[in-house]
């Protein structure tokens, strides 16, 4: 029988495998969130990506809440995506992209986009408010105090 080590070799920086993976995922996510925000704000072609950010608010918490080693990273991603979405909608609102002009036809693409954005805005509000149902103060505080 070939020689086998009796335990797995430790990682060079002393982190457990799961923690290291979580740190890498967290770094990638942060970059992704920021670049997604920039893409969404740069062109209407990327508005669909709002859905991805909203899902980060929801899915990350519900599916990974039991993985304690990932919890802090997950919280950071949730807070980051919440801030990002709030900034996006603030910018869209300031640019008047959440309201239609009186002269637009009700079935025009412009109106459909505005309606879709308003629906996503309501989704965002609901997902943010769902954070109040978590038992974690660090997730509840951002519902009140997101920096712009």
């Amino acid at each position, binding site marked *: 029988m070939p020689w086998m080590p009796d335990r797995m070799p430790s990682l060079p920086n002393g982190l457990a495998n799961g923690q290291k993976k979580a740190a890498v995922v967290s770094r990638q996510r942060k970059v992704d969130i920021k670049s997604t925000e920039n893409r969404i704000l740069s062109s209407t072609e990327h508005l669909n990506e709002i859905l991805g950010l909203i899902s980060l608010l929801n899915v990350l918490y519900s599916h990974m809440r039991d993985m304690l080693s990932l919890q802090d990273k997950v919280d950071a991603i949730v807070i980051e995506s919440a801030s990002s979405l709030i900034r996006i909608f603030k910018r869209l609102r300031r640019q008047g992209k959440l309201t239609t002009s009186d002269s637009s036809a009700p079935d025009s693409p412009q109106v459909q986009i505005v309606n879709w954005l308003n629906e996503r805005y309501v989704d965002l509000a609901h997902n943010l408010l769902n954070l109040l149902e978590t038992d974690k*103060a660090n997730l509840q505080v951002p*519902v009140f105090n997101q920096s712009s």
Partner: protein
Amino acid sequence: MRLVKDETALGSREVTKFANKTYALFVEKILQSKTLDDAVLQELCDKYLNAYYDIQFYFLQDAGYMRLEI
């Protein structure tokens, strides 16, 4: 609260109108939440409810019209 502030400040109308539709969702969630942290509740009172009359007024109004599960 940031959404409510932005919605109120950047609304399309010429006259500023409080974004009560979003705020009512918030009030409902606050009153129904069983896990709201004490520090968070304190912050809500200190920074918003006791500081701004419009927020206080709409909080009481929305709470009055709400269907609470008791």
